């Protein structure tokens, strides 16, 4: 075909310039692919983190700000060598909020949780320094009081039993517990072991794990947790599943109308809480990467357009000759466009390869990012204080308990996936670059008057 023969021979003749233009487009396309892949990777990773924080199927959480309304009640302190109590630094509210929220239009289900911490401190306030506790901080162990009947929403939805059994509705008032596998391993506990919370013994009925690593160390029935923390009928959190993601905003408004004191957190608001290297990567991909890709693409397009117009200017007499031979303007336009689009396609293909390679390299380098997240949003206040006197010495102590459980550093398996849509977009951009350059060049070629073109010094 004459069109292809002409195109091939012309491009071969000015190979260096064609390669230069294609390389510029390739870099732009590669950047678009890389930035898109990193953005997709961070989005996936964020989704993974949020998934871990929320539990399967949880669309929003309802909490109450600390210090408003109910606060953590008094603790169960027994005489002895240490204080062992279960309490929470979070805002408490009545369990009646659960059926109130569950009854709202658009809500599929709701479950209440008492998010608490077991604190263990010697009565003299001095905690022995150990390699795992170099500052001698009071020990704090996350304990969730969960509804044993709710396996599909809330903390139990995340937990996978690897030993023993799960909690059931029959356990509502039983002194039983599930342990996180990491906690159990570190403390040499297993199914059948007995643990003590607030000087109260509970039997371990199962060991659980969760891929995100965000399950609390100890899960116990809600009513037991309420009793041990001296907060009967109180909860700290309602996990909510909605009928449709599109209803999220409307349901949020209804919850706030029903419970004016409530803090309602959705995945969108929680995403802002994510920081750490994952957050930095996401921001880098979103901001710097996006603008860099746009700038390089724009420069590549401009370069391609300028070089194509320059090439057309050099070929003015050639186009004049073609007009003298009876070539219609559209055929000349097609020839110039064909050359430019071919360069654009070559740039897009090379750029796609480069983009794939860059995404693979980034996936390899950034395999182990971390995300620093709030274990639950809005609870970064100090955990509380222990005050009292030593029963034997009479010495008073006042010890602040630092909040150790709110910020978690989660390992993220990061990968930068290159989707078919991104490849199509990249090839489209390369072709668009070629078309843009060709359109300018061919427009100039087509509007040449034959007499002027033939008189041009070739």
């Amino acid at each position, binding site marked *: *075909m*004459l069109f292809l*023969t*002409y195109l091939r*021979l*012309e491009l*071969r*003749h000015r190979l260096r310039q064609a390669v230069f233009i294609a390389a510029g487009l390739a870099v732009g396309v590669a950047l678009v692919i890389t930035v898109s892949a990193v953005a997709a990777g961070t989005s996936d990773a964020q989704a993974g983190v949020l998934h871990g924080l929320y539990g399967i199927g949880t669309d929003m959480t309802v909490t109450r700000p600390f210090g408003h309304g109910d606060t953590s009640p008094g603790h169960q302190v027994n005489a002895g060598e240490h204080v062992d109590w279960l309490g929470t630094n979070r805002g408490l509210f009545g369990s009646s909020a659960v059926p109130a929220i569950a009854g709202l239009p658009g809500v599929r289900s709701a479950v209440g949780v008492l998010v608490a911490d077991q604190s263990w401190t010697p009565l003299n306030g001095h905690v022995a320094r150990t390699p795992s506790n170099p500052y001698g901080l009071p020990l704090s162990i996350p304990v969730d009081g969960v509804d044993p009947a709710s396996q599909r929403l809330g903390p139990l939805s995340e937990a996978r039993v690897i030993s023993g059994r799960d909690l059931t509705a029959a356990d509502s008032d039983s002194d039983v517990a599930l342990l996180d596998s990491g906690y159990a391993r570190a403390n040499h506990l297993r199914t059948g072991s007995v643990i003590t919370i607030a000087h109260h013994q509970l039997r371990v009925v199962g060991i659980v794990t969760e891929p995100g690593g965000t399950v609390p160390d100890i899960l116990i029935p809600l009513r037991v947790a309420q009793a041990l923390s001296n907060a009967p009928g109180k909860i700290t959190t309602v996990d909510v599943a909605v009928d449709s993601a599109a209803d999220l905003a409307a349901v949020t408004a209804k919850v706030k109308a029903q419970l004016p004191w409530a803090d309602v957190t959705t995945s969108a608001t929680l995403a802002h809480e994510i920081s750490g290297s994952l957050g930095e990567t996401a921001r880098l991909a979103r901001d710097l990467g996006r603008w860099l890709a746009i700038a390089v693409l724009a420069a590549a397009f401009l370069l391609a357009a300028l070089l194509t117009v320059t090439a057309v200017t050099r070929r003015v*007499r*050639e186009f*004049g*000759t*073609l*007009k*003298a*031979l*009876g*070539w*219609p*303007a559209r*055929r000349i336009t097609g020839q110039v466009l064909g050359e430019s689009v071919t360069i654009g396609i070559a740039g897009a293909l090379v750029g796609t390869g480069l983009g794939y390679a860059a995404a693979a390299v980034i996936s390899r380098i950034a395999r182990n990012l971390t995300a620093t997240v709030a274990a639950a949003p809005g609870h970064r206040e100090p955990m509380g204080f222990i005050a009292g006197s030593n029963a034997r010495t009479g010495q008073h102590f006042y010890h602040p308990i630092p909040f150790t459980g709110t910020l978690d550093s989660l390992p993220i398996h990061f990968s930068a996936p290159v989707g078919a849509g991104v490849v199509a977009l990249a090839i489209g951009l390369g072709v668009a670059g070629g078309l843009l350059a060709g359109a300018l060049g061919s427009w100039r070629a087509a509007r040449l*008057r*034959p*007499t002027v073109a*033939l008189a041009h010094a*070739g």
Partner: protein
Amino acid sequence: MYKLTGVTRTYRKGGKTVDALAGVDVVIGDREWLAIQGPTGHGKTTLLQLLGGLDRPTSGTILFDGKNLGEMTEAEITRVRATSIGFIFQTFNLIPTLPAAVNVELALAPLRLDAAERRAQVARALDAVGLTDRAGHLPAELSGGQQQRVGIARALVKDPAVLLADEPTGNLDETTRDEIIDLLAQLVRDRGLTLVMVTHDSTVAARAERIGQMRDGRLLFDGAPVTGGDRQP
């Protein structure tokens, strides 16, 4: 073939009006070989471009086979160039990136012939100018005379009615010039073509049947403008 009546062509150049053609009247008959001579800047090339439909007159009419070129649409006039008019240029105007055969084939591109037919016509045209063995050579690999032969093959390959040649031997030495003119004369005779040739070379012009002189935008024969009718179109 052609009948020109009162043809003028005016340009604006540097704020001034330039009359490139100041009223040309001439009839060019079928199969006629007309040579046009004259000093540089007196309108020879402008006249040739108007005859080839590359430009349009400011006033007057140019009838080509009875049709007014000045009133044709761009598409119609492009079609006339593609089918009926062959151009031969002083500087050959070959596409430097394409081999001789492809350069010749370019003239057939607008005619929508199938590839086999195009290749057969190209082969015949190159054979007619004695360049069969140079079909695959780039212009830079050919001598000046050979390049002009390719140019002639390109002009003839579509079997036109008219050849318009602008100084076809201007870049050739005398020996090559004579070869090219002999070739042109033979092809014009054998194919029954009309040839309008602009040339400074009196030796070349002497081969034509009729010689016109361009002076100040007017075409003169034997010192007087043609009033028309000495040859029928």
